[in-house]
């Protein structure tokens, strides 16, 4: 795997990340299509995801929760806008209350996933994430912040080792 491009647009509140994988498109698509594979990568290792609903059809819903080190659960959902297996997937991504119901007070991002064949048989995958407002982006990042913490710890380790 190699991340080949990252484009960030603070005005449009959009980030696009592109990575290349040796696996063919049909295989790479399975990390979205198979809930057991999805839950192995969506949440960070300290907040693993458990997918409880998974319907990748237009209008379909994916529901999951992430379990923290102290047993704390954080629920989230996707609503599928468009899907064309194995090349495109577009969905809204939001947080939910404890019963798993979408919380209207919590932010929603729109993600667009594109998988394309590489000449060597591998996959180029791009994910574009767009937020409606700075506040929504703040909330999503705050909720994903254990990764930010790990990153900061990694940077501190790097400084100490230098």
């Amino acid at each position, binding site marked *: 795997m190699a991340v080949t491009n990252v484009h960030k647009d603070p005005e449009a509140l959009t980030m696009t990340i592109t990575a290349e*994988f*040796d696996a063919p498109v049909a295989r790479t698509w399975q990390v979205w299509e198979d809930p057991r594979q999805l839950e192995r990568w969506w949440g960070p290792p300290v907040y693993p995801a458990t997918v409880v609903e998974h319907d990748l059809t237009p209008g379909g819903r994916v529901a999951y929760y992430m379990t923290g080190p102290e047993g704390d659960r954080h629920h989230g959902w996707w609503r599928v806008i468009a899907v064309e297996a194995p090349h495109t997937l577009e969905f809204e991504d939001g947080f939910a209350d404890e019963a798993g119901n979408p919380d209207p007070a*919590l932010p929603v991002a729109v993600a667009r996933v594109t998988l394309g064949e590489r000449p060597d048989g591998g996959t180029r995958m791009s994910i574009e994430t767009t937020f409606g407002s700075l506040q929504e982006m703040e909330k999503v990042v*705050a909720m994903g912040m254990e990764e930010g913490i790990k990153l900061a710890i990694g940077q501190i380790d790097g400084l100490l080792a230098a």
Partner: protein
Amino acid sequence: MFHALGDATRRDIVMRVLQGESSISTLARPYPMSFAAVQKHVAVLERAGIVTKQRRGREQVVRAEIDSVRSAARLLDELEAIWRSRMDRIGDILVVPE
């Protein structure tokens, strides 16, 4: 800032005040700990500049300092970190034969 957020109760408090300002007594209700312990967590977040506290009558109201904490560019950097680690994990899944 990372010390301030390196605790599950404090992260939970931040998530709740991000949804709207709240009094300390309301914040303290769901936790199996004393009002004073919750007050201490809020004080750590306040020192880190993540929340502010204001006395309003008999209540102390806590609100998130969203705009002062992070700019859009900084948030996108953190979002990039989240997705880079997701791509890493996808890469790990894909190298293992099914």
